[in-house]
């Protein structure tokens, strides 16, 4: 299992790094999906297969497919990759790199000074424990999450609608779903 973890971690890091340097959105998306799948594998090694399944079903399966859907609706041509290349200049990496290094320093310091706690709890929490926690102490959280999702639903519905009303002739630019 250790080996699996380190392999998945390596895949996750590399694919994630590739996400942010890609010129083509779909390729970036594929790397992102790969990153998420490796994260799911890591979850399994961390004793959380339930969440790993959710990660794949919801993150990789539903959220990412939304991205694919939107990309297909936008149907960006080949010129967008050139535009990306133009936007990505070497100098832009400096600031984020400094920030990242600062954070790295923080993390290393933290890990250095914090006492080493080794060993894990004997039993990993399964779906049953998660469910009981969700509908026990976290019930309010579940309710809030459902309200949030409802708000997201209403919000995206509204946004999607108003486009058509304001720009009737451009509404067809999205293509597919109307015919």
């Amino acid at each position, binding site marked *: 299992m250790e080996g699996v973890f380190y392999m998945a971690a390596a895949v996750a890091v590399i694919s994630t790094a590739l996400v942010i340097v890609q010129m083509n959105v*779909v390729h970036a998306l594929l790397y992102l999906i790969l990153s998420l799948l490796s994260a799911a594998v890591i979850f399994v090694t961390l004793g959380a*297969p*339930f969440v790993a*399944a959710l990660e794949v079903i919801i993150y990789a399966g539903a959220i990412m*497919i939304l991205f*694919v*859907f939107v990309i*297909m609706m936008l149907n960006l041509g080949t010129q967008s990759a050139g535009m990306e290349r133009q936007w990505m200049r070497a100098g832009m990496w400096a600031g984020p790199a400094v920030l990242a290094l600062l954070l790295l320093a923080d993390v290393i310091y933290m890990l250095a000074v914090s006492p080493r706690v080794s060993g894990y709890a004997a039993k990993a929490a399964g779906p049953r424990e998660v469910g009981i926690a969700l509908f026990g102490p976290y019930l309010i959280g579940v309710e809030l999450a459902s309200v949030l999702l409802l708000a997201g639903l209403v919000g995206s519905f509204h946004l999607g609608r108003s486009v058509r009303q304001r720009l009737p002739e451009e509404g067809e630019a999205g*293509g597919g779903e109307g015919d």
Partner: protein
Amino acid sequence: MGKTVPETIRHLIIVFGVLAVMMSIAAGLIWVERRLLGFWQDRYGPNRVGPFGILQPLADMIKVFAKEDWVPPFADRPVFILAPAIIVVTVLLAFAVVPFAPSISVADLNVGLLYFLALSSLGVYSVALGGWASDNKYALIGALRASAQMISYEVFMGLSLMGVVMLAGSFNLRAIVEAQRRLWFVVPQFFGFVIFLIAGVAETHRLPFDLPEAESELVAGFHSEYSGMKFGLFFVGEYLGITLISALIATFFFGGWLGPLLPPAVWFFIKTFFFIGVFILLRATLPRPRYDQLIRLGWKVMLPLALANLVVTGGIILAAG
């Protein structure tokens, strides 16, 4: 994981056995479907290659392998190549959790049902990316349709199974089968069964829900630009999908391997083939709906039905203690 050598060998045999069986079933279905369609449409179907045309899949395979492996120059090459592989890989991986018999399954995951849902949700990418990478407007429209259809139907495919999970009290497929010793879940979960069947047809985009590849409007939908073995992979993936859904219907609602007299694995295959037959019968008899009708059916009929089923089931379980 301290496993003894014989155990490991047994495990490997199961893995490769399942792989081989599934691939041959998928291949065999090419012949079965055409023969059955012929039977229901009062004609012969393939009957020249071998006795009853039973070697027809072999001939097709030779043809497909021999074709030129051609990628359109305007296509996004890596994605174009990746897409057909995804569907085959995901469906084959999903078979890992199917319990063919009490002791025959590749992996006995305690979240097996979620594992199946996860992989089936990944199958969308095959269609969507294939259509997008082709850079062809019919293919793109087909891909859009496919992804919208599959996201929609995935929602209540998952919901319809939750009733089964509630009754069995587990995500483990083996436990679900064991829970049906007294009564097949098709009885208490009849609506769940109906929803799952319809969603399964939509997930595998088989007729009558084959709008992503509707020949009459979209040439061939998302795989318009595909040929040779890449097309063959889509084809095989579809048959594998049918087999998977049939196997799972048998597992979830018809007691899996349970049955008198005959060995468990035989019972399992009998049930699975019955539902494969149902799939083909559906193709032979039902007309294709319009796309908006399909989506409307999903969100306005199936989803409320699935939710109601869930609520009623939960209520009864609570009431019964």
